């Protein structure tokens, strides 16, 4: 299968082999990956709880997002880079793992949810003000985001238990 050949090639690159063979490198990269995910999910939860209208109500939603999201993006970049490095070290097995595949699908869903929200639901975000009543679109986007990201964490943990 062409995909398998590409994955095996990826696994055979110098960097991928170094990571998989070096006892210290994989755990260190994985630890940074975990730290990055912790920050991505934690900061997104802060924003989502504001969108749902449950927390940080004294702060305007637009301001909160502008404050927090740069850190979310920074952490996401680190998570993506470390994730790619980890993936490359065992590409074929990860690619065929149900929970890894699911995690990628969920990340795409999270991205779509975010894109739709920013393009459609958040257009008048600066007019909401510091209030509990957020538009239904925002509540939906926030709740969906929470569900998807919690599942991302769950699937990520399950990869470790189901990798062959």
């Amino acid at each position, binding site marked *: 299968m062409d995909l398998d050949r590409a994955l095996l090639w990826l696994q055979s690159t110098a960097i991928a082999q170094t990571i998989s063979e070096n006892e210290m490198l994989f*755990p260190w990269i*994985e*630890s940074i990956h*975990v*730290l990055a*995910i*912790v*920050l991505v*999910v*934690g*900061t997104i*939860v*802060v924003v989502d709880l504001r969108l749902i209208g449950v*927390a*940080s109500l*004294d*702060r305007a939603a637009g301001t909160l997002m502008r*404050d*927090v999201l740069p*850190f979310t993006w920074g952490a996401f970049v680190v998570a993506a880079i470390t994730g790619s490095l980890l993936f490359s070290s065992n590409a074929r097995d990860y690619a065929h793992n149900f929970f890894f595949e699911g995690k990628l699908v969920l990340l795409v869903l999270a991205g779509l949810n975010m894109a739709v929200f920013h393009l459609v639901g958040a257009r008048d975000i600066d007019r909401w003000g510091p209030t509990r009543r957020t538009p239904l679109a925002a509540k939906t986007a926030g709740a969906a985001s929470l569900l998807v990201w*919690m599942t991302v*964490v*769950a699937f990520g*943990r*399950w990869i470790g*238990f189901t990798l062959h």
Partner: protein
Amino acid sequence: MGPAIGKWLSALTTWLEHTSLSHALQVTSWVVPTTQTIHILAIAAVASSALMVDLRLLGAFAADQPARNVSARFLPFVWWPLIVLLASGALLIIAEPGRSLRNPAFQLKMLLLAAAIAVTLVLQRRLRRDASFGDRGAPRLAATAIAVVSMLLWCAIIFAGRWIAYYR
């Protein structure tokens, strides 16, 4: 680890390993991964909330608000999820006593956690006594020191947590 503490931990480990609760948790395949997932989500809440406060102390986040306000908003999300962390952590210890209690990475994690809780308490007390702590014009060294130490501790805790799996 002093020999007395080591012996006590070994005794506790052996006792836990023989409880029926420990066996039950081990044979139900989904319990440990699910509990670990909850544990990770709780860490996300705690570490990110602590980070928001620490960044404010460094003037890098929500600098237009008094540090006291930012702290009042986020510190509850350090304390309450900490309870979830302790509960899920206890469950994980009961399920796999040897993997945790006798593991140097786990022991280090607990020491770091105690330090992080202590630093957070110091910060809370400081903010209560000094309304302008961490704000412009107030002495910056203590605020910076607390923020940096706090961030380093939470990072180290997360790293130590992952290393439990690698320390056999």
